[in-house]
């Protein structure tokens, strides 16, 4: 893990009408590292990820990808999105395309790979994550965990600089949660090129295993940020302590 910053969020502000959703949010994500966003529902985690993927127009502050400001309206949004991939809570797979077609759509259409190249790369990824035999199936015929793993593969297939994961296990039962989390963990442990990730999650155990850095959000503001072991096991702020205690009581740690 190098110390070079891949993604930097600086004093980000976002409101929906009069409701302030993100307030002066700042953090740095080093290349090859994973930053985990924790916080109650409605704390702004998803909005933050959507801002990074330029799905929302921010009200102030800036986001940098490899030192380049991506929130600058003068740059091409589509060019930037090609470097950032996002996986959604509800999978968002295309039901009318097979697993392989879902994965190869962007590489072929956006990145101009040849159909053969794209298929080869898709099959490689499907084999790596144990889904090769599902390549010809349609998403609705797969289990939730398999669908979410396909969604992750689809995001990986475009070789993103940064991967955003938005509560990717929230729609899954505990047994399936694990297979998805293992997939994410593998991305982290890839010796050649660990994926730079920003992960919003409610799974604290997972946050600790995968996160290099944990960021606790409340009411749209960063309450505490630091190394994952520190924030999760020795939180300094009272609000972080309260949140983690509640999570613990709910039996999720």
């Amino acid at each position, binding site marked *: 893990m190098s110390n070079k910053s891949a993604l930097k969020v600086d*004093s980000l502000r976002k409101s929906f009408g009069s409701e302030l959703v993100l307030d002066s949010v*700042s*953090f*740095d994500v080093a290349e090859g590292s994973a930053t985990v966003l924790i916080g109650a529902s409605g704390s702004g985690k998803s909005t933050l990820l*959507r801002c990074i993927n330029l799905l*929302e127009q921010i*009200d102030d502050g800036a986001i940098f990808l490899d030192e380049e400001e991506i929130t600058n309206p*003068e740059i091409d949004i589509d060019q930037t999105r090609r470097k950032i991939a996002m996986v959604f809570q509800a999978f968002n797979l295309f039901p009318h395309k097979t697993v392989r077609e879902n994965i190869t759509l962007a590489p072929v259409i956006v990145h101009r790979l040849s159909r053969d190249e794209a298929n080869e790369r898709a099959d490689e990824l499907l084999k790596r994550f144990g889904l090769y035999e599902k390549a010809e199936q349609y998403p609705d015929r797969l289990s939730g965990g398999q669908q979410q793993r396909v969604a992750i593969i689809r995001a990986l297939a475009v070789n993103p600089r940064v991967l955003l994961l938005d509560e990717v296990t929230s729609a899954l039962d505990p047994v399936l949660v694990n297979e998805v989390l293992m997939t994410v963990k593998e991305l982290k442990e890839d010796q050649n090129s660990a994926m730079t990730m920003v992960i919003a999650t409610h799974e604290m155990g997972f946050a600790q295993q995968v996160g290099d850095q944990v960021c606790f959000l409340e009411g749209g*503001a960063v309450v505490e940020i630091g190394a994952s072991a520190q924030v999760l096991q020795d939180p300094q702020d009272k609000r972080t302590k309260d949140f983690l205690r509640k999570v613990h009581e709910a039996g999720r740690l």
Partner: protein
Amino acid sequence: MSSTGSESREGRGEGVSSDGRALSSGGWSPSEREIRRRSFRRRAALRYGLIAAGSSALVLGTLLIVLVTSPGFTTLSDTFFNWVYGAQVLPKVLLGFMTNVTLTVIAASCVAIFGLAIALLRTSRSPALTPFRFLATIYVDLFRGIPMILVILLVGFGIPALRIPGLTNNVLILGTLAVIITYTAYVAEVLRSGILTVHPSQRAGARSLGLSHFQSLRHVVLPQALKRVTPPLLNDLIALIKDTGLVSILGVTDAVRAAQIASSRSFNYTPYVVAAIVFLLVTIPLTRFTDRAIRRSIERQNAQGLA
């Protein structure tokens, strides 16, 4: 993972506090970066507007010049756009148009009811309804495939020829009946396709709550289906307004027929243009109104944000 100094914070009275919300939500003012960003967006919007205006002026101007300078323009404007004559025939065209409107209202109401019934019949799975499902399919196949003008002629002249006592010979009623028969077949298919696009999980959700087949349809499936097929239904409604004029072949005077009568007397085509404008005055607002209603209902349901 160090947090470097930020340039975007300059020009802003406060830093990030641990309780940033209370501090900066009150006294927040945009940073210089944001001000630059906004002025760029404003300039981009202005440029967009200028280009749009320029290109519109160029295209429309060229069209107008080509039209006005064409050799036959004076003759054309006399025979098609004689507004004094147009004003004279307007009452007659409007009177004829009332026929179109009346027929449309009656036909549309009947088509909505029968079309829905057939759509429901065709999507139902009840074994007892099998023969009706079969008949409904034949009906749709038949009347979607026959030109409406033939249906009008067959009904308008065929039914009176049967000489069944008690059955009407009124061409207006028979013509409307023919229009209803044809449009029901179209609308039934539009509604059926709408019902089929609602994901099965929605029906499953409703049935699991104990709603019956028809209750699920009524409260869960149909509301979603109707919203999706509103644009094509509107298409059919507009086509219906225009097609009601076809009953004029049975001798009914509608707007088009009124215009035809007037222009055949004067050898001036302005009445046709007047009739066209009368139709547009109804159909265009109708389209805009429906578009807006649909957009609003989508916005109400969907989460905020662009994509």
